[in-house]
């Protein structure tokens, strides 16, 4: 009798806890998903539904006008292409250069490599705004230590409004948050047993071959994490894109200037007196269209990401 009562209390406790957990998880998941759901609901509404008191979630007049509008204003397809090109280019180069640096710092120790790693930590710690202006001026008159003027005859290159700033910084592992990626790679490579490398060496593989054939295939989770982070952060970044690219059609610039462009289009360039509700509705649609590719990618990578993150060795 005593035992069964004890069992019952245990059972009740467990049942209560799973109920509380369900409420918590579901509630917080709702908090995260709510803005997306609301944007979807807003974007398929007709203009008249905005003022209809009976419409909250499900629109009365279903329409795709918002999408059509946004696609023309944002120049969506070329913008999508540009952003995709830029993001995948920087992501790929960043991943390669950071993986190399991470391997160098973790396994191929040389004199002063620990000191240099302090430099990596410094790049993580200094806010990018601190070095923004000199980098900007440097890229505006790019000389590469006076080499380029010799070749072109006294003229420096203006690299702004091209993709070169992104290519150069990601090629040299100094793009956005690159320090973090180097750190992730280094931690992960440190987790691979030394014996693996020694065995590869004894079997006659050089250092480069060991890295390519043995180490990299073992670090797929870390590579995926870095690829996803770097792609997403580059896609959404407005800090560097607005500095380096002032006129190019890239997603984050198009999104941030969407309200102005909309105002200009609707009121024929005059002082904008556009209905702010309508403006906000179109803006929501724009954001939805901008993050749609990311969500699609996330759906495919997600399983991989969620399951494998446990082994990425961020923790060390």
């Amino acid at each position: 009798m005593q035992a069964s009562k004890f069992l019952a209390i245990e059972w009740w406790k467990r049942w209560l806890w799973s109920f509380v957990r369900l409420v918590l998880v579901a509630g917080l998941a709702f908090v995260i998903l709510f803005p997306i759901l609301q944007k979807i609901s807003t974007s398929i509404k007709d203009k008249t539904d905005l003022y209809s008191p009976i419409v909250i979630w499900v629109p009365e007049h279903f329409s795709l006008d918002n999408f059509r509008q946004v696609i023309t204003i944002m120049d969506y397809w070329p913008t999508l292409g540009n952003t995709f090109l830029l993001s995948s280019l920087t992501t790929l180069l960043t991943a390669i250069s950071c993986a190399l640096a991470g391997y160098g710092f973790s396994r191929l120790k040389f004199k002063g490599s620990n000191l240099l790693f302090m430099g990596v930590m410094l790049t993580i710690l200094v806010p990018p705004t601190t070095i923004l202006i000199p980098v900007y001026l440097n890229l505006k008159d790019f000389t590469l230590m006076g080499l380029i003027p010799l070749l072109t005859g006294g003229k420096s290159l203006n690299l702004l409004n091209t993709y070169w700033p992104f290519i150069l910084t990601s090629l040299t592992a100094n793009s956005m948050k690159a320090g973090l990626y180097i750190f992730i790679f280094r931690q992960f490579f440190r987790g691979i047993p030394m014996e693996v490398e020694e065995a590869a060496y004894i079997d006659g593989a050089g250092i480069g071959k060991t890295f390519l054939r043995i180490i990299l295939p073992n670090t797929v989770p870390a590579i995926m994490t870095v690829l996803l982070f770097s792609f997403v952060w580059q896609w959404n970044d407005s800090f560097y894109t607005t500095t380096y690219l002032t006129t190019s059609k890239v997603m984050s610039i198009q999104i941030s200037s969407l309200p102005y462009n909309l105002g200009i289009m609707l009121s024929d360039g005059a002082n904008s007196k556009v209905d702010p509700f309508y403006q906000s509705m179109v803006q929501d649609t724009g954001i939805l269209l901008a993050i749609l590719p990311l969500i699609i990618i996330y759906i495919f990578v997600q399983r991989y990401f969620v399951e494998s993150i446990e082994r990425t060795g961020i923790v060390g």
Partner: protein
Amino acid sequence: MKLTAPLRTSRRTYSQRKAIYGFLYVLPWLLGFLFFFLVPLIASFRFSMSNIEANSNGIIITYAGFKNYVEALTVNTSFNRTLTESISTMVVNVPLIVIFSLFLAVLLNQKFLGRTAARAVFFLPVILASGVIMNLESTSLVQAVNDSNAGGKAVSGLGSFELAQLMIQAGVSETIVDYLTGAVDRIYQIVSQSGVQLLIFLAGIQTISPQLYEASKMEGATGYEAFWKITFPMVSPLILVNVVYTIIDSFSTNDMTDLIRETGFEAFNFGLSSAMAWIYFLAVSLILLISTYLISKKVFYQN
């Protein structure tokens, strides 16, 4: 020739070759570090100490001492306010984000139906809450109106109000009550900023060996005790990591960054902008130092 070639390569020992390769692998980063980080950092410091005039021939830099710093701190109308505001939001948010993500990580580590789906949803903010989308989201008018239309605001407002009353009557200090209810009201902001921290904690919890939990269960420890005696000390190094990450993460989007950029690129006052950036950097490093010092005294390391 065939004989000498292998001989020549084997003249260096394995560890020597490793060192050379190591330097080669790090070299791209090193070049970037010099050109895109160290030189600009020094230049920025020089700019902050000088008057900068731009004309058709380029820019003229004249040394001006601490004039820009004095101007930022005493003359500029918005610098002091923005600096204190952005730092105080940071100080308020960091503990909330870290505690919240630790709690969620423990929750998501338990086995329950639909765990994978729940994890996928909770990592979504890593993607959504970054950069320009975050900025625009706060200005969405439709969303704000919908909130109040749906009556959600009235209910949630009432909820946290009653909670506040309850706690004040129970004798809890008013500042703490304000802090907690403020956290409830800003739940979206906190959830959306804790994606990466959640990942780090979850990864950390999974490295704790299950034997510890089994042993404590044998001795009769409850889940609550197991959390405070096992999970918490074992992830305490990661608390440090997460505090540092959260502070750094707040650089990317705040008013201070905007102010520095506006001064630099709209008012073209490069000197003042650099001075502001340096004051900001120093303030942030001070906070980082203090918090690292305080936390690392409590952190438990296994060896």
